[in-house]
């Protein structure tokens, strides 16, 4: 049974219908990427899961528990990180974590160890005594992640965790999320940075104007759209014979020779990058470079959405 289940969720703000009957599921331990333009309904959906908004209709469950009926039980199971890190300018990083450890009713005897662990995990041990408002934006985001981990929740709800961060901080956050994924956490993450989600997420959902456009694994979405994956390769003994054999390989859509490389477009459902590498070898080619491009999520996103808002 899926850890998160949403069926026909509808949420409105007054007369504005922000979410219009969306449904999706997240199995336990998966990282679900929530993609959509501004105003699509991502944050609203996350807020419903975080027990901050009451849905107009639909069923929302986490770990089999009905969210609107048992918000208190849900709060112990989730860690929610909003898209903006509000600062308690009067607290240090350590005090901030102690504050939330007490709010999550972690026994006092365990707090010091738990806080030490999350600070180490987020690489903030040296900043423990620093005032929160003196930390950089990247550090604040890591501190927010440390906060959501305090009570060891099963589900992390992360609303735009990498927005506004510089490249280094973004990579740090991404690595941290990978570590959390390794720890078996179920993660729902919304983001605009599509290629980063592609590297991190096991499943994605694309939402537009309050409606789910598509949901599934990346491969399923690319297959359904008939998208091609590009592999760049350098072949030392490139010849017409090798090129014609490549073009005849099942699953290869086209082969294009460029000044320094050969770009092969293949249908992801029919041929994997590993199989292609074996095939090129079997054609007698000597390979200097073999570089599959990350799946082109931007193309998928543009193809599936029209830029509408709720």
């Amino acid at each position, binding site marked *: *049974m899926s850890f998160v289940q949403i069926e026909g969720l509808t949420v409105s703000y007054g007369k504005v219908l922000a979410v219009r009957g969306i449904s999706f599921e997240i199995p336990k331990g998966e990282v679900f990427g929530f993609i959509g333009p501004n105003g699509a309904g991502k944050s609203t959906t996350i*807020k419903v899961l*975080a*027990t*901050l*908004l*009451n849905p107009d209709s639909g069923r929302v*469950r986490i770990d*089999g*528990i*009905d*969210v*609107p*009926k*048992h*918000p*208190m*039980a849900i*709060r*112990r*199971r*989730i860690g*929610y*990180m*909003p898209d*903006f*890190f*509000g*600062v*308690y*300018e*009067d*607290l240090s990083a350590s*005090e901030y974590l*102690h*504050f*939330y450890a*007490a*709010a*999550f*009713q*972690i026994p*006092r005897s*365990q707090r010091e*160890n*738990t806080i030490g*662990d*999350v600070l*180490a*995990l987020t690489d903030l041990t040296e900043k423990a005594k620093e005032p929160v408002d003196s930390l950089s934006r990247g550090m604040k985001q890591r501190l*927010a992640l440390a*906060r959501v*981990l*305090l*009570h*060891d929740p099963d589900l992390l709800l992360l609303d735009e965790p990498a927005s506004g961060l510089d490249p280094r901080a973004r990579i740090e956050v991404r690595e941290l999320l990978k570590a959390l994924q390794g*720890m078996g956490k179920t993660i729902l993450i919304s983001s605009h940075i599509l290629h980063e989600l592609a590297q991190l997420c096991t499943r994605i959902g694309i939402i537009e104007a309050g409606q789910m456009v598509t949901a599934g694994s990346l491969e399923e979405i690319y297959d359904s759209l008939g998208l091609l994956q590009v592999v760049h390769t350098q072949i030392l003994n490139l010849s017409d014979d090798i090129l014609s054999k490549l073009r005849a390989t099942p699953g290869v859509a086209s082969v294009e020779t460029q000044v320094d490389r050969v770009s092969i477009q293949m249908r992801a459902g029919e041929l994997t990058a590993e199989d292609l590498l074996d095939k090129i070898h079997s054609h007698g080619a000597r390979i200097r470079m073999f570089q599959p491009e990350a799946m082109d999520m931007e193309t998928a996103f543009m193809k599936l959405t029209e830029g509408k808002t709720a």
Partner: protein
Amino acid sequence: MTSSKTNIERIPWWRHLGFPLLTKELTEQANRRRTYVVRFLYAAVLFALGVLAIASDASGQVQIGAGQEIFHNLVHLQFWLVLIFLPATASGALTVEKERDTLSLLLITTIPAWSIVVQKYLSRLLPMLSFLLLGFPLLAVAYSYGGVATSELLGAIGLLMLFAAQVAAVSICASAWFRTTGEAFIATYVILAIMAMFRLWPMSHVGRLAGISNLTPIAALQYAVVIGVVIASLLSMAWGCLERRAFLPPRNVLLQMFRRLDKFYEEINQVTGGIVLVNDGNELPDERPIAWRETSKKSLGTVRYLFRVLTVLEVPILFVAAATNMSMVHNTSSVSTLLFILWVISAAMLCVHASGVIASERSHQTLDPLLTTPLTGADILKQKMAGVRRLIFVLSVPFASIYGFQTWFRGFDIGYVLGSVASAFIFLWLTAWVALWIGLRLSSPMKAVLTSMIAVVLVCAVPLVLESLLGRSSTLIEFWVPQIVGSLSPVNIIQGIESRGRLLNDSHELAFFLQLGMLPLYGLSLILVRGTCLKNADTLLQRLAEDPEASINPRTDEEPANADDRIAAPEPLAAASV
């Protein structure tokens, strides 16, 4: 770059009189529902009080010459409405642009800074002038009763318009100088108070409206020129500082003030060798983290600051009490005056503190993470009120001192002691909970503080105004109705209790018991407001409340309950997983 700049410089000044910003501002205001709500409120207040004034003064029959008093009351009312409404709308004219980071976009357009200031000024002044027009029919009614000279009518209209122009100019000047609307709003009233002290405003003429009719045209012109120069100077100052203060970084003025105060006290404390009387307690939170932050980290919650507040409030009381005791002051009315000042200060402090506890979390966007913790809504509110509780405890000390001194000077009176203690307890807590409730419903701390203060003023003033208006019409209304209505005002209740020891005759005894009888009404209000806040805490905090009809077991029926459900005790993050 140079050529574009040259092009801008070549645009003649009169080309900037198209006022596109003014057009945009007025269109925006016309599209806002709030504009019509405020206009309706203004008209409703004006006409309700105006009709009451006319009805009570005319006493059901037309009295020739009765128009003058009605006229004076109406003009007074308009002045006060300008003073209340205009700073609220005009002090945000430029600060809102700064807060939204849109002032820079305005400054890079071809509209010069002086024109931005003038257009913003007019965008706030013109709607106010249209508000003033609403009152003219009432003035005409008063004029028709007689007793008002035509020159007096015209003079009053001129003064009203001049006053609106001046208040708007002060607000725009403050708005150009300060970073936030709150700072600009407070500064507007401070500047106006200073001007009032130097009689540099038309309102000083309201008290002697009759004198306006005696003003020669030249004297009136001279006066208008003086106020005009003041307005022009204020707008020039706004123009001068608009660009220089366009990109001020956000700052917490209160926090900075307290830090400066800290530094000052630390320097002074060097004289005593650094004695620490009170230590600010727990370094880390126990089981009540919000209460911990409110009482050990917030400026108005810590023992250190509260002790200073207590010192500032207590010293004058002790001084006056000592002077009274030594017969330097011959009656106890000076102590009573101190009591009223203490009430005003206490109400203001409670409004600021209690209305901001939730509203400031919302504005800093720190509330949502807090709401996803397993603390109940009622618990969050109770813990948030921990700092307020401390403040009330500290404020109780000077109240107790005053009541103690009064009892000492006048002799023991159980009615006075019970009444004063009950009034202090009920009104202080009621102010705090009403302010908290208002703070829960508004997202901006500044709006919450102002609304709380306005609520307190209204509760105190409305029964007094009604008592005054109803009292003039003894033929229309029974004589005891105004007295009962007036007794509803906390001002009358406190005054009644305070005068208890001094004026004991039958009529005062009756008034005292009438006013004391209103206290349980406010006590009931306190219980209701507190109960509403705690009962609907989750909804007011804007998060999901536990469904009372849901089964005890949070698991659904399809899935059997899990024996090792971790709802009761969250496990710490395993070190191994790190």
